[in-house]
């Protein structure tokens, strides 16, 4: 949203420097994303009068002599290409040396100079169109200025109050503040944060526009007696209030002859000038935050095929179609709200009007709508049809019901037509909540020491009604504050308006923290693995169905994401190793010659079911892969060395037993060349090489192994300290010729050398020999 500071100043007296104002707005109201400085954008642009205009033969150009008042002693000659230039008109003249305003933002702003046109006509500066002045995209001719407003030599910036700063407001943090989406509401807050009382315009509370009509109260709301319009709302939840007026008008689509301040304000707020009526409805929306829509009333009656006009507000039928003002045909769904005349849709509520009731040159009467629709429905409409207009942006914040009728009256007055009929559908007027609160409650939550008067004034400044009875404040918000319900809402008002920055930071005293043992374990592993030359990775929690397949895991055991970004991220992973195999391929390709990579993260499987909170059982897992592109040895032993060292660091000495299980963790591993890691008869992980099919599907080099550890199980057995070994006194290597496994041979050695610490040595087997020579390194300690 764009906010012109000059427009704001019409409603609030700002007596602090702009910089300070912008800081205050940021600190006490909303994030200011950017500030567009237009204080010198219109320098050297003057009002001028065309004294003489002669067509240059065989061209579309006109040779003009213009009176630029005090800006030059004599008439200035300018060549103009616009069709509407004529003698006597007041124009905007961009003097030589000035920058064309529309080009200010460009990399190379266009500086007007003195030129020679058609080789012989001097042209000094240029006569500007609305688009060149950055007042929208109208390129049909040059702008004309009302002689009642200005005279030659006046600076355009002075006539139209153009020396301005435009604030670019981040809408998101005003999600709950529909009132701030209008200049008046914004100005009210600005007054509040400067400690001033805001004076609300009268029209927000009463209307005196429809006084020629006799209005009476009915069951469904207010209506004019003579000429009636029926409003039928299928469900007041989708449209709690609908105010409508029929106005007799003249020259509906005519544009103002002269450039108006309203057009300038629209442009500064980021909207284009369309026609007088549309401009007024947009202007009133920017002013009040209440979007309006004008239908051609006679067309409305005609498409309705009813003898008496009826406005029907209902949900669309699935597949129902209509053509909108932008000539697009849309297919509606049952969440969209439509305005219908009888049965025929004439507008996609809150989003855009229908082509069939568009206001045009022939329009004699308009039906003006000022309503509030369900923000939930409109939010979905916005997404479904991709409409992000200024109007729907406001509707999706929840337009307050309290103001629709008063704004309708103000817009009718501004349009100036003669009201013929009025109807205000308002079934269940909202009751404004009353909040009772004490100054102590406010101060004890904020950590402040504000006195009662300051609090009351602060709230009153922005329109709250506040009474103090004995110990309590009674706070009543105005109708536009739909966000106020509880004490905390009032505390926010006080804290915010007086400045959170004025709250003195303090430090509470509280107890000491407990250690999170899983966190501490991971920290320890991270330190160790770093030392052992391994690299910690983080990979996505979501994997593709193909990856699960490649890792020999079952897709139906994975939670499936229904709105995944791509098929690559469709399933919640069951273990870490498959993700690492994927990244191993990337790194082998880079190429990285050798690497040991690991990740500690959470995994889920459907087979594990739900926990006591009825959310899926979650496990912490550590996956590890070691790979080299050219090595020929048995990778299993490298992975085993890493996992044994890792567990040793936390005092765990596991057994390495043949694979018995086939759960998801184990499924990528080759049972001939892998071991289950077992502790006290419980499997806590697996280490080994991968099935040939798995390795081939990941396209990885032959030297490849890995392990996966159940960190929750590891944590259960982890000891705080690892065993520090006593110094050895003596050591020797022995070699044994054997045809049994390492484990069995080791047992024999242990028997023969009780008390010795035994480390594995190399294993040698001669060609054609059945037996192996196993070397053991023995250390004897005291």
């Amino acid at each position, binding site marked *: 949203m764009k906010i012109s500071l000059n427009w704001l100043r019409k409603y609030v007296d700002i007596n602090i420097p702009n910089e300070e104002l912008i800081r205050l707005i940021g*600190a006490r109201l909303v994030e200011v994303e950017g500030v567009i400085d237009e204080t010198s954008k219109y320098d050297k642009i003057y009002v001028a009068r065309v004294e003489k205009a002669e067509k240059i033969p065989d061209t579309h150009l006109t040779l003009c002599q213009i009176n630029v008042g005090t800006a030059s002693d004599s008439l200035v000659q300018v060549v103009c290409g616009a069709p509407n230039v004529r003698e006597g008109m007041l124009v905007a003249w961009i003097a030589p040396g000035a920058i064309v305003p529309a080009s200010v933002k460009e990399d190379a702003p266009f500086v007007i100079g003195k030129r020679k046109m058609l080789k012989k006509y001097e042209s000094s500066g240029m006569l500007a169109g609305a688009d060149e002045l950055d007042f929208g995209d109208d390129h049909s001719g040059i702008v004309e200025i009302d002689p009642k407003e200005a005279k030659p030599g006046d600076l355009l910036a002075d006539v139209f109050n153009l020396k301005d700063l435009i604030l670019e407001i981040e809408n*998101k*943090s005003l*999600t709950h503040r529909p009132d701030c989406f209008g200049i008046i509401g914004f100005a009210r807050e600005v007054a509040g944060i400067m400690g001033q009382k805001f004076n609300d315009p009268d029209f927000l509370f009463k209307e005196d526009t429809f006084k020629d009509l006799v209005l009476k109260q009915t069951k469904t709301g207010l209506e004019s007696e003579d000429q009636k319009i029926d409003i039928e709302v299928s469900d007041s939840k989708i449209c709690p209030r609908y105010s409508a007026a029929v106005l007799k008008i003249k020259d509906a689509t005519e544009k103002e002859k002269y450039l108006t301040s309203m057009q300038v304000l629209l442009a500064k707020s980021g909207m284009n000038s369309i026609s007088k009526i549309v401009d007024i409805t947009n202007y009133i929306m920017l002013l009040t935050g209440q979007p309006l829509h004008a239908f051609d009333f006679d067309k409305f009656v005609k498409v309705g095929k009813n003898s008496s006009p009826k406005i029907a507000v209902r949900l669309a039928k699935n597949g129902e179609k209509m053509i909108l003002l932008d000539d697009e045909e849309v297919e509606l769904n049952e969440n969209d709200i439509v305005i219908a005349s009888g049965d025929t849709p004439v507008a996609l509520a809150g989003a855009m009007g229908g082509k069939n009731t568009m206001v045009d040159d022939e329009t004699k009467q308009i039906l003006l709508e000022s309503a509030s629709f369900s923000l*939930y429905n409109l939010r979905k409409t916005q*997404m479904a049809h991709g409409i992000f207009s200024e109007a729907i942006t406001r509707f*999706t914040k929840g337009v307050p019901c309290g103001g629709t009728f008063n704004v309708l009256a103000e817009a009718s007055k501004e349009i100036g037509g003669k009201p013929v009929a009025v109807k205000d559908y308002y079934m269940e007027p909202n009751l404004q909540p009353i909040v009772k609160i004490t100054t102590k409650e406010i101060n*004890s939550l904020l950590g*402040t020491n504000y006195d009662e008067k300051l609090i009351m004034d602060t709230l009153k400044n922005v329109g709250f009604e506040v009474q103090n009875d004995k110990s309590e404040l009674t706070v009543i918000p105005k109708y536009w504050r739909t966000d106020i319900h509880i004490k*905390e*809402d009032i505390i926010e008002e006080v*804290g915010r308006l007086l400045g*959170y*920055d004025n*709250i*003195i*930071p*303090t430090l*509470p005293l*509280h*107890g000491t*923290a*407990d250690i*999170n043992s*899983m*966190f501490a374990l991971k920290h320890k592993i991270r330190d160790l693995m770093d*030392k*052992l*030359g391994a*690299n910690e990775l*983080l990979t996505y*929690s979501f994997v593709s169905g193909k990856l699960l397949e490649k890792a020999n895991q079952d897709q139906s055991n994975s*939670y499936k*994401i229904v*709105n995944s970004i791509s098929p690559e991220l469709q399933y*919640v992973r069951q273990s870490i190793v498959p993700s690492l195999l994927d*990244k191993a391929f*990337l*790194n082998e390709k*880079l190429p*990285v010659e050798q690497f*040991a990579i690991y990740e500690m*993260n*959470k995994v889920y499987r459907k087979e594990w079911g739900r926990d006591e909170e009825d*959310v*899926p059982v*979650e496990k912490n897992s550590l996956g590890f892969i070691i790979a080299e592109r050219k090595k*020929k040895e*048995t990778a299993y*032993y490298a992975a*085993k*060395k890493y996992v044994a060292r890792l567990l040793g660091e936390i005092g765990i000495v596991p057994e390495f037993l*043949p694979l018995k299980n086939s759960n998801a963790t184990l499924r990528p591993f080759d049972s*001939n*060349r892998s*071991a289950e890691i077992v502790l006290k008869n419980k499997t806590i992980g697996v280490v080994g090489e991968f099935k040939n099919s798995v390795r*081939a599907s990941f396209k990885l080099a032959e030297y490849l192994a890995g392990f996966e550890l159940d960190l929750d199980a590891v944590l259960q057995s982890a000891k705080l300290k690892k065993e520090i070994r006593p110094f050895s006194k003596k050591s020797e290597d022995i070699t044994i010729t054997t045809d049994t496994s*390492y484990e069995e041979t080791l047992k024999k050695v242990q028997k023969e050398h009780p008390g010795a610490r035994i480390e594995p040595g*190399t*294993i040698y087997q001669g060609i054609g020999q059945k037996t192996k020579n196993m070397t053991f390194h023995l250390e004897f300690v005291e």
Partner: protein
Amino acid sequence: MEQSEKIGKLKQKLKELNAEYAKIKEIKAERRAEFGRQLNEAKQKVLAEIKKAEQDLINKESKPIDITAWSGVNEPLPEFYPATLGSKHPLMAELDRVTGIYQMMGFDVVESRQLDDEFHMFDSLNFVKEHPARDGYDTFRTEEGLIPPAHTSTMQHRVLKSYKHKLEEGEAIAVVVPGRVYRNEDVDATHEHTFYQCEGVYVSKDCTMGDMLGILREFFEKYYEQKLNIRTQPGYFPFTEPSLEFMIEKPKSLGGKKGDFLEMLGCGMIHPNVLKMAGIDPLKYHGFAWGGGIDRLVMLRYGLGDVRHFESGNLNFLREF
């Protein structure tokens, strides 16, 4: 081994055949078609052989090894890689540092879940049903309607409930919740669908917004090892009231100048409905909570411009840390 050598040889042959194609220009025009046909035939044959050999390799029974041993037969004992190759993931190292500081300040650490439900993600946090704020989080969902959480606040209700006893014992609840979160959005240099946050929750009998600002400032001063100016901005979250955005003046170590402010996190006084839902009486206790991104801290620290590096698994990047 022989099988893979065979594949290597076949691939070499394929390379040679591909090189033959270049010769086609030298062949007389009338013979070109025949030359091409023969070459294609030969190539198809080699391709088929490669496919078969690769299939054989996959189907080949692997040779069992002695899983109890510590090295292969006639192989040297394996070695660890040198420490110079090792690295910690920068996000995890940062998270360790962040939680370390909070622990020093008396905050327990509870890790966030990575798959949660609608109740914890929204309902327990005072999000009205169908409220557009729910859409604002662009959550992923599973077939069962579970949610990979879009913010670590998904743990707030659990933390409040499980630490409630502290209040009854006259103490404060002081917990931080680091964790991985997910948003359904397109990835670019500054957006990731997977990232890390750290949440903080504090509840006691008489804590104030002043305490919140004090704790947050204290944390960032310890984190950046210097005194800092702070700023706030009104914000909106359904689960805090009032809600704020918290900013710090850009630290010197990050090249900050006076008046440069960095948005660090969202925070606010815990909404009474959130306390109530966890069984804590909002008339007796106040609380505040905050949450901010970890990825951004790391990017600021190292001057990184692309968030996509973090989950890339690219060792050329990771070995820098």
